[in-house]
């Protein structure tokens, strides 16, 4: 049965919503404070560690967690697996929120945000002052474009709702009536962009750290970094979708789609096999095998990344595990954690400025990150309850 997407409905101001709101407001206050006092007092960043929690986690890991939209779009539109249709809207929503808030994190992190508008405007007024050699330029332009694409891809959910509310909001309804057919016609080319753009910027996020050259630990420093980041992003995309689907089933009391999730998980397992093979063979061929057992903290980080991703892949091999929602969920969590750790390690843990320095985020820095995540969850809850995003078995009165 293929039920249409519908708003989940139900009360918005539940207890979790109120708690999340508190964290979001606190985060907003701290962001305003950081803008006034500068990055120094607000964060633990320094000349030795100029990139910390906000870049390594909010931006780099946050966008990877937003790869659900990318993963499902490939499955649904490229590989033509129609059975995943119900997953596309929630996945695109998660991605849209994840990427939008990663963009917010960048705005907070850069020291001179008043010049950021130069980037989408070709360096205006010094037109052409782009540096096309910079991987960061590619990431910036691509992410900006992708945020726009994601919200356009999601727009039918808004237009459908506004059209349905014709009488209460006539202007929005009229706009929706005109916009919806246009978006639907262009959707194929928009979706194609939605697959092209993340392919580009997720690999560029890997290329970005290649430029740090000798400061990046050899176990992470490889010319394959762009490809590894891309594959890792795909695994995380599938992980996000499995978790999101399982959680939504639980929260909104719908049936869990274990057979669909089990097969999704399989795609992730294949990607994991590729990832690990690529990493280890490259390490062996470059003569870095000795580093695998060096008595350093970074070695632990490396093995954590590997094991967290190898165990779920191996778990999947057993058929009984593929239809057990708990195993699938836990495996997906491990995949997400592994991917997040890989990015976090590449950008922070494996980065060695070569001087005696250390970095640890300050409390305000952490609270801003928590606030941003809280806001993301708030937006997700609101949109899912009020707009036709989720589909599947109809919910009873849901409380979440």
């Amino acid at each position, binding site marked *: 049965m293929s039920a249409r997407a519908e708003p989940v409905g139900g009360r918005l101001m539940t207890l979790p919503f109120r708690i999340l709101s508190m964290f979001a407001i606190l985060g907003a206050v701290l962001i305003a404070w950081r803008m006034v*006092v*500068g*990055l*120094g007092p607000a964060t633990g*960043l320094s*000349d030795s560690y*100029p*990139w910390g929690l906000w870049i390594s986690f909010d931006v780099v890991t946050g966008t990877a967690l937003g790869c659900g939209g990318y993963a499902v779009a490939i*499955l649904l*539109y*490229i*590989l*033509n697996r*129609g059975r995943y249709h119900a997953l596309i809207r929630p996945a695109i929503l998660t991605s849209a929120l994840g990427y939008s808030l990663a963009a917010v994190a960048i705005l907070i*992190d*850069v*020291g*001179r*945000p008043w010049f950021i508008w*130069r*980037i989408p405007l070709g*360096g205006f007024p*010094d037109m052409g*002052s*782009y*540096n096309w050699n*910079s*991987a*960061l330029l*590619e990431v*910036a332009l691509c992410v900006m474009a992708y945020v726009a694409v994601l919200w356009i891809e999601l727009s039918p959910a808004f237009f459908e709702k506004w059209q349905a509310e014709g009488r209460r909001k006539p202007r929005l309804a009229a706009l929706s009536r005109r916009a919806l057919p246009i978006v639907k016609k262009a959707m*194929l080319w928009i*979706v*194609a*962009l939605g697959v*092209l753009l993340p392919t580009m910027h997720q*690999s560029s996020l890997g*290329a970005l750290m290649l*430029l*740090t*050259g*000798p*400061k990046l630990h050899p176990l992470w420093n490889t*010319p*394959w970094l*762009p490809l590894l980041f891309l594959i890792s992003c795909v695994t995380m995309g599938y992980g996000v979708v499995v978790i999101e689907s399982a959680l939504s089933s639980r929260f909104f009391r719908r049936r869990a789609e274990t057979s669909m999730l089990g*097969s*999704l998980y*399989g*795609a992730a397992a*294949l990607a994991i*096999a*590729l990832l690990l*093979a*690529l990493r*280890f*063979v490259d390490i062996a061929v470059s003569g870095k095998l000795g580093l695998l057992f060096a008595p350093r903290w970074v070695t632990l980080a490396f093995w954590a990344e590997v094991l967290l991703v190898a165990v779920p*892949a191996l778990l999947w*091999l057993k058929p009984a595990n593929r239809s057990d929602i708990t195993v699938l969920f836990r495996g997906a969590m491990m995949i997400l954690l592994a991917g997040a750790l890989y990015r976090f390690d590449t950008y922070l843990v494996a980065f060695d*400025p070569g001087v005696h320095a250390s970095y640890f985020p300050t409390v305000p820095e952490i609270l801003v990150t928590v606030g941003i995540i809280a806001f993301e969850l708030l937006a997700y809850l609101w949109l899912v309850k009020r707009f036709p995003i989720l589909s599947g078995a109809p919910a009873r009165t849901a409380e979440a």
Partner: protein
Amino acid sequence: MALDRRTFFRGAAAAGAAAAVGTVPADARERREAPADARGMLYDTTRCIGCKACVVACKQANSLPADTRTEGMATWDAPTALNDRTKNIIQLYKGEGRRSYVKRQCMHCIDPACVGACMIGALRKREYGVVTWDKSRCIGCRYCQMVCPFNVPKFEWNDANPYIIKCEFCKDRPGDKKFVPACCEVCPRQAVIEGPYRELLAEAKRRLAEHPDRYVPHVYGEKELGGTQVLYLSHVPFEKLGFEYSHEEPVPELQQTVQHGIYRGFVAPAALYALLGAVMIRNRRRNAAAGAEEEES
């Protein structure tokens, strides 16, 4: 997705084979050379007496505030390293019964990592090959700090309008002092001198040849990291002075080779976009046909 153990392991084997065979594309980007009018500095540790006149002169010429933050030195302008108030510093190495001063500032690399990194062109190699920073472009992303192998660019962390602080070869000195480094002007022993890069390199080699017993037989900056326009002669090993890296590959070389290999002429992204569109059109037709068949039957 029909997936089984066999596909799983086949995929892994394929990736392994790809990694073993794959190498960085053979047509790596060309090594850069210093521009024809390149100017630089030559610093000779055997002449430096650690008077720090250069540190004072740099502060004055660049209108930098005094750094009174050093513990126990609150009434002195006494920075201990390059920082947001210090574009030039003298540090001391003591060890194994030897000592040496070392002057640290921007190396004005021939193929700078920071220039390769800066997406908006705030850091560029300008006249004389000097690496300069443009406050009207910088967005403060600090990617330059991440990539500089010498950890040169410093950031004004405690400022709501933060600048990147680094030696710019005195590009802002007024009149005919423009691009005449103040540090070289005041040095009482001519431990640091400035001039045309190629002449300085020749002078460095001449000193090595004339007094081989005095120096480590190497000019640091001639080849390292693609070459730097600030050159060093030393009587102690360069690693002791804080020069960690001795490889010749310029920092941007690998990343740009990989990046350009993928994006050259934007062909690959355009081709991928066309392919994606074509696949989706085909899928749409197939689904429509399958839908029509279902209706008929």
